[in-house]
């Protein structure tokens, strides 16, 4: 197993103490450091526990991602600019014709995500299968039983290490059949350090006498190459190096943070059964470069759904600030209730109408707004509730810019791919991400209440309906009988006379 730990100190953070780093022969002490932290573990197939081997050996490529939907806070995010809608995202490419049954039983066993088969629970995008669960609190619940399973009940050090991941802002697991390695990648926000005030107070030691840990404490390296990122600071391999080495590295980067561009989202009120998510963006009046498009990537879980035919209505979409809908994938049944649905929902990629906004912005410098029209499925009845809460994660909003240089973005040591939306853009595309701005909530999601039928009066509903039908039927039936008796009497009289 290879370990790499990176601390990313914001360039604004000037008061990093001189004695923050202290290196000994087999450990590095870090004290009072305010930084974004990334831990990366790389495991070979042989190093994996058997139950994980069983899962990954059925996949050609597997990505399990989690995002806790909280603020990163940092004004400067360096290479860690990309985020995902809060919750769990799984993207899996089966190995040959595999049904990936082990992945399915793995997530239903450890993550409590209902999965009878990949076919019924995941949405398909060609061969790629995708699942999304909008649960921001899932990670700690998964990691505890997983830690037991991975480490065995007695190994506290190992369990602590696994459990520590549960506080991460984002966690990525990536397996690739070609390289036969599993990468585990956890990122903590700058305010999430383990010591007082969110600072990092840690002692990094090697796991075994002959293993090593790469550590980097880096900050902005000044003017980067075009479409790249430059970092400078100190690097050290704990268990090998005697001293911290100064470093200055530059690399092309797929993901960038768009400075001082923020957005927030909420439902229009009242929401009814046809809620609309309204997103407000502070963009300034410019795009990162010519030819860039502004996009929003939505994951739309049950009980929400989009009507793809409505989204095709260009005029309506323009009025909502959307230039065109680039993709709708997943479950878009227009009628079924949630209990008849087996898939989690759908994803939507929208290209926003920046041109139209720009022409207005010249006159009136107001924030840009756009709206995604949604609908609600009926939800199950309940004896104690009159409504069910439903949450929709905020979309990810980003600029997508075509690259002029076909530089190798995969040489980036922090590269992140297969987030769910890149396939809709050319291979060499740069993404400049806007930052979700949380104001009234701690999580980047919008919530509403779905009215449901309260079933405490189910007896009255049943008997009442039956009563009404019977009364109506008997009334009409009675009229029919009466009029027949009337006419047969007359026929009778008539025949008597004859």
């Amino acid at each position, binding site marked *: 197993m290879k370990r790499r730990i990176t601390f990313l100190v914001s360039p604004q953070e000037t008061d990093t103490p001189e004695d923050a780093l202290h290196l000994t022969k087999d450990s590095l002490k870090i004290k009072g450091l305010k930084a974004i932290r990334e831990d990366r573990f790389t495991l070979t197939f042989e190093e994996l526990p058997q139950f994980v081997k069983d899962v990954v050996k059925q996949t050609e490529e597997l990505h399990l991602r989690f995002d806790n939907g909280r603020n990163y806070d940092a004004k400067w995010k360096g290479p860690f600019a990309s985020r995902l809608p809060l919750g769990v995202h799984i993207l899996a490419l089966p190995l040959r014709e595999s049904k990936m049954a082990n992945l399915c039983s793995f997530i239903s066993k450890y993550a409590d995500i209902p999965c009878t088969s990949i076919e019924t629970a995941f949405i398909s995008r060609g061969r790629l299968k995708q699942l999304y669960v909008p649960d921001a609190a899932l990670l700690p619940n998964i990691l505890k039983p997983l830690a037991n399973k991975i480490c065995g009940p007695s190994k506290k050090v190992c369990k602590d290490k696994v459990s520590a991941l549960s506080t991460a802002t984002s966690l990525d697991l990536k397996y690739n059949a070609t390289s036969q390695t599993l990468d585990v990648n956890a990122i903590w926000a700058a305010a999430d350090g383990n010591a007082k005030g969110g600072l990092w107070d840690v002692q990094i030691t090697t796991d075994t006498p002959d293993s090593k840990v790469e550590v980097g404490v880096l900050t902005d390296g000044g003017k980067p190459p075009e479409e790249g990122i430059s970092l400078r600071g100190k690097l050290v391999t704990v268990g090998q190096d005697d001293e911290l080495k100064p470093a200055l590295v530059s690399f092309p980067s797929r993901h960038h943070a768009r400075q001082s561009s923020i957005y927030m989202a909420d439902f229009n009120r009242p929401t009814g059964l046809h809620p609309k998510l309204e997103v407000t963006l502070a963009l300034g009046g410019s795009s990162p470069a010519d030819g860039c498009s502004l996009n929003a990537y939505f994951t739309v879980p049950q009980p929400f759904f989009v009507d793809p035919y409505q989204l095709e209505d260009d005029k309506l979409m323009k009025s909502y600030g959307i230039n065109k809908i680039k993709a709708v994938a997943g479950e878009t049944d227009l009628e079924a209730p949630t209990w008849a649905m087996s898939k989690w929902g759908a994803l939507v990629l929208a290209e926003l109408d920046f041109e139209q906004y720009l022409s207005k912005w010249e006159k009136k410098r107001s924030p840009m707004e756009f709206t995604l029209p949604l609908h609600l499925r009926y939800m199950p009845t309940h004896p104690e509730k009159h409504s069910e809460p439903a949450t929709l994660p905020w979309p990810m909003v980003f600029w997508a810019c075509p690259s002029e240089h076909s530089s190798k973005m995969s040489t980036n040591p922090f590269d992140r791919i297969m987030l769910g939306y890149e396939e809709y853009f050319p291979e060499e595309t740069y993404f400049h991400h806007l930052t979700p701005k949380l104001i009234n909530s701690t999580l980047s999601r919008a919530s509403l209440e779905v*009215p*449901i039928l309260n079933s405490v009066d189910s007896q009255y*509903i049943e008997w009442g*309906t039956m009563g009404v039908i019977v009364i109506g039927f008997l009334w009409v039936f009675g009229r029919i009988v009466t009029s027949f008796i009337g006419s047969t009497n007359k026929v009778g009289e008539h025949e008597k006379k004859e």
Partner: protein
Amino acid sequence: MAGFSVTSVLILSSLLRLTFLFYGLYQDATSVFKYTDIDYLVFTDAARYVSNFSSPYLRETYRYTPLLSWLLLPTTFQPQFLWFSFGKLLFAVGDILAGYLIIQVLQIYGFTTTRAMKYASLWLLNPMVATISTRGSSEGLLGVIVIALLWSVEKRRVVLSGAILGFAVHFKIYPFIYALSILLWMEPPNQRDLASKIKGFITKDRLVFSITALTTFMALNIAMYAIYGHPFIVHTFLHHLTRLDHRHNFSPYNTLLYLKSSPFTPDPLYPAIHLSDLTIERLAFIPQLLISAVLLPLYAKEDLPSTMFAQTFAFVTFNKVVTSQYFMWYLVLLPFYLGRSRLLRKPLMGGLALGLWVITQGLWLGQAYQLEFEGENTFWPGLWGAAAAFFLVNCWILGIVVTDIGQTVSRNVDDKQRAAARK
């Protein structure tokens, strides 16, 4: 009305529909609130699939005969701004044709042209009818089929009648309720007592009618099945038998269907209370078909169109799903019944019936609006109560209709008595 000719009424109704059509084009072009019905987009999308030689059932929620998408093929022609509205025009023409046929049939029943026009205007100059067709709903087409059926029956064109009925049932299932009525109507003269009626039931006309109807219906189904296979059966027929229909609509069964189709969570305070095994929603077809397809046809001999009106009214009232488009199904037959109705003879009763029908419907719409757009929980008792009230009002009106038609029966008997007395 006296100074009007049939032509002028038809021109007036055409102008009405053209105005609505152009207004609709204007609204669609300028507003995000569309005039065009969503179903029209479904039809035209399906037609586009057909124009590419694929199945109309590739369009989600297309639940009609492929013939409809074939009829609308011109909507895929270029230039689109001209041809796209072809279907609306077709439906509107169907409407007007239905109105024209109403006049014709009323005249068969001895109405003067002026009087026939007055009653037909209920359909021809009705803004609701004009709106529904020009928004692109196909119900108007069904209207012309049903009136054409009535016309051909009254003209004693047996083969044609059978063919139209077979086509109508293929097109929209529900006209099968007219089958028994037409068969009973075809009663030969001089069958006065029940025994002779039963003994002489099988006649040539009845056989020919049944065979043509069945043949047309099955031939169309087999042809469509041969072309489009299983999806045709699933979407055109099976869907209507198996649909859940849990979403709110005018039907009194609606809340119950939501309750029964949803997974049930027992109340922790009263864990013993479960949903009963009462499955009235599964038996809903019994009262519906007993009244609309079995009992009411017994009046057909005396007054076929009024009976068909009552049948349709009963079918819609007792249906498990009711939307406002279904009201068109009986509205087209209303002119035939209204002429001999107490609802016109007694304006107070007529006003009350119309008033209650409108008020209870409005009540339901209010509850539905609060649920759908304000997110207020009106499922129970509001929405349920409004649907129940609307249902009961409909039953009350149906009672009046039945009594009225029954009196026609009595009157005819009276006439026979008088005739016998004269002998």
